[in-house]
């Protein structure tokens, strides 16, 4: 695990953070599904740490804003269409999390059924790591590894991710630890069509 240069993090008096889905008109995924996906993604980080997350009420100011955008969208980091760059997020305490609206985003089990599909929850878990202060990890298999194969679902924190986030924010006393994974059949990797591996 790594941190951004300077080690930015949310200050100790901000352990209850809110997030808002602010720009969702560019995706066909319905609002209720999006809420459920991001709630699960945030919960994976709060399970391991002292941080807690809640979706903000409509119209309320939120610490973290999440939206889908196409092409240039005003932050100097324009998206490039299907595949390529999938999403980006800013380090603490900026709170912006942008997803490329041009991707074939899928939710849950549908991730493995479509060529070029990208699992939304997998990318959400990764970008939340950035929002909390983690940089990219060179540990293949970690959530914070920079690349993801199409048709792949990778949502569970690995030891490397847990150590990184707990070093920043402490440990949730109820955290059960990282679930062991089978080396031969992993539910985390259900790849069917990796463009990267062609």
């Amino acid at each position, binding site marked *: 695990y790594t941190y951004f240069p300077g080690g930015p993090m949310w200050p100790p008096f901000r352990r209850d953070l809110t997030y808002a889905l602010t720009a969702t008109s560019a995706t066909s995924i319905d609002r209720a599904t999006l809420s459920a996906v991001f709630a699960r993604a945030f919960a994976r980080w709060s399970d391991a740490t002292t941080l807690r997350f809640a979706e903000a009420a409509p119209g309320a100011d939120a610490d973290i804003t999440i939206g889908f955008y196409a092409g240039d969208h005003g932050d100097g980091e324009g998206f490039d269409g299907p595949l*390529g760059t999938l999403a980006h997020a800013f380090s603490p305490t900026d709170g912006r999390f942008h997803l490329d609206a041009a991707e*074939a985003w899928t939710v849950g089990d549908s991730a493995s059924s479509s060529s070029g599909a990208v699992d939304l929850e997998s990318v959400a878990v990764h970008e939340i790591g950035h929002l909390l202060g983690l940089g990219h990890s060179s540990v293949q298999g970690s959530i914070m590894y*920079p690349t993801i194969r199409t048709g792949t679902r990778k949502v569970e924190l690995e030891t490397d991710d847990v150590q990184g986030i707990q070093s920043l924010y402490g440990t949730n006393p109820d955290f059960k630890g990282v679930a062991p994974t089978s080396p031969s059949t992993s539910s985390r990797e259900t790849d069917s069509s990796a463009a990267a591996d062609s």
Partner: protein
Amino acid sequence: HFPAGLPEPPFPNPWSAFQNLSGCHMGDERDGLARLKGYLSHFGYLPSAPSSSPFTDAFDADLEAAIATYQRNFGLEATGALDPSTVTQMVAPRCGVADVINGTSTMDRNSSSSAHGRHL
């Protein structure tokens, strides 16, 4: 995993043209290397090109060093050349956050906590 040897899947990838650069090394000049330099610049491995002097298609020492850093970050053999495994890694869909910020590799735990830089 997509089986090796089969043609590219029929969906667009903005970086798929990099596969034509497989095998390039120091001293080569090949159409598309300028775009690859842009990719490496975007993720922090090369400084941005000034508008007065855009990237060229020459495989120079700076590109070789940038590729070697990329290879180290992704657990590949740090040859500095565009071997097939490096190109395969480069065309993979990925997060847009840079791996190297202000010359400091955020993927190198020994150096990532000491420098200050842009937040994205």
